[in-house]
């Protein structure tokens, strides 16, 4: 295996791990995989949603995973 192979493997692995980490991190934070946050969504939450603290996290309950 050449050093160039190792570089390419490192790049691809980094991209894949980075993508998985972002998805996992969003999942843990409860962010929707649609990528939107509630400031970018015109009508998102009502009955089951609780108070959203804008200064802490722009994601409201509707975008959190149950």
């Amino acid at each position, binding site marked *: *295996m050449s050093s160039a192979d190792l570089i390419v493997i490192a790049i691809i692995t980094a991209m894949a791990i980075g993508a998985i980490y972002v998805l996992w991190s969003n999942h843990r934070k409860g962010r929707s995989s649609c990528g939107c946050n509630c400031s*970018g969504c015109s*009508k998102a939450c009502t009955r089951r*949603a609780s108070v959203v603290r804008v200064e802490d996290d722009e994601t409201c309950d509707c975008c959190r995973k149950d």
Partner: protein
Amino acid sequence: MSFTIALAGNPNCGKTTLFNALTGASQRVGNWPGVTIDKKVGRIKGTDSQLVDLPGIYSLSPYSPEEIVSRNFIVNERPDAIIDIVDATNLERNLFLTLQLIDMGRPIIVALNMMDEIERMGDTVDVEKLSAGLGVPVIPISAKEKRNIDMLVSAIETVAENGTAPKAVTYDHAIESAVEAAENALSGKVPDESIRFYAFKLIEDDSAVNELAPGARDSISSTIESLEKEYDDSADSIIADSRYEKISEIVSGAITRAPRDEKGSLSDRIDRIVTNRILGLPIFIAVIAFVYFIAMYDGDLGTSPGAWATGWLNDFIGDDIIPSVEEWCVDNGVSDALTGLLCDGILSGVGAVIGFLPQMIILFICLSILEEIGYMARVAFVMDRIFRYFNLSGKSFIPLLVSTGCGVPGVMSSRTIESEADRRITAMTCTFMPCGAKLPVISAIAGALAGSAWVAVYAYFGGIVLVIISGIIIKKFKKFAGTPAPFIMELPPYHAPAFLSVAKTVFDRSWAFVKKAGTIILLAMILVWFLKSFDWSLNLLEEDQLDDSILASIGGVLSYLFMPLGWGDNWELPAASLTGLIAKEDLIGTLELLIAEPFDLDISDALALMASATAGKAADAMILSFFTFNMFCAPCFAAVGAIHRELGDWKSTGFAFLYQCLLAYFVAVIVYVVYSAMLGGLDDVAWYSIAFAVIDFVILAYFLVVKDPMHPFDKKGEVAE
């Protein structure tokens, strides 16, 4: 000191704009009523006080989820003070809520918003007289221009610190007597400070108050009867009329209106055309066609800005970036497998999706401007008339509009619909609309069909038609039967689009698309590359051995399912549809990897070649069938998850998933056969496709026309078993 301040007001009176001005937040502001559905909390700049932005409401009756959220917050959380934001250009209607808030007994201040509009119209408001009439401080402001915001903050802190309850606004003697009797009946059962509010609600026969104080209304029934007899009206109407009379009295002394143009305002004149019973729908179709034309058209009339920019970006990725990386790999002796994964898998797949970003940006700009200027609120009004004709609620149309950005918030926004049946139907069907993720699919297929904008218009209005068809079909089942929920929507005045608001919406949506390309789509492309490059024995295949790959065998099994749709002969297309369930853009990435990149073609040309080789004269019909199925079948997993959260159980979610796929299948077969016949290519269509189309047509016609709706109510108005 630290206070909790509630921000309450009517829908579309500038509440979210004021919230942003007070807190420095950047919550989405929309020019249609109901942008704020939940309550949001922020800290008022320069203070320790927190501001709770309540949903826009017209009254404190528990008729809608928004009213319940607001009412419960004020009653249960007891904010230190309330900022009641009032639209100065529409005082009479806005003050109805103000009078109810005053009755709640919490310290309150009125923020008289849109004073810039008042000045522009030449009207004047005597703020002191208004304040004296209401018995609460009134601060004239312009949230949009951030005028008098500091004065408002200072005044609300003073009011909260003093904790002074507002003086009650009084009505006729008979009403006051009834209120006094109601207060006595409620004494000890509700908070003292809000007892006047509860007393009015008891007289109005409010169900929540009746639950809170059982028997209280019975104890004052004679008082209410005599009140109703005296006014010859029902108690709730008497209270409402009295409030409006009082408002009229207060406002007439406080506002001086400049003479109006008899033809009405500019907004009124525009509305006469765009909401016209006959012209409204054709204008909407023309507007949407124009939007997609700007974003996507590439044909005889020229190339639209969106198509030009996308073409440039695709060329840059395909002709510059990927060959450069490939050259570097070859020069440095990178193995064929790794070069293939990097260049033919990741860069080609993700690049094929990212290439459509310019078109998406232009589409998002156009849709945001339409929404910002207030046109989309008119569209909801126009569509309500059509939806109602088909026994659907016009309220269902708002989620459809939201779904054109992303299906997930679209599904979530169905929560605003009070009727459970309508809410579930809307959550199940709003993803028929073409979301941003479907745009690359639309664009690629449009190229294959030698057209462009009309394919997008077909997807947009096809989605609306399928929602209507679904509404008609599903409402014929007892579980979903019922009259549609009422839809009341205020039409806000037109105004010029705010650059920052449009820019923020476009950036949010575009950035979400880029993030998605770098995560879900990247991983999916690695998976697709692996599945197409290896066989079941994990041998690396040559480019001409694609048919032996793992993906080919999966696609091959699925292809039998899609034979009647005309594209089952090519395993690549069913395989691409399958990956489209992960994210719709994956469909494009997969097609790039399977049919375009190996032959050095772009997706549109590759699809057109494949179709003409497979279906002859019916080639375009085959492509349209493939497009129809993928536009309207089950959405991506994220949206399915959102549907599950809305429907509450996997059984209903499974039903929704199957229903969407089945309906898309039925429609795609019919489209394939009918369009083939129109093209004169029926000879190239298999007999079983025609048979399937006839059966599908009969089934759809049965549910749409023949099957009787199951009426939930019998003639006596009782629920039928």
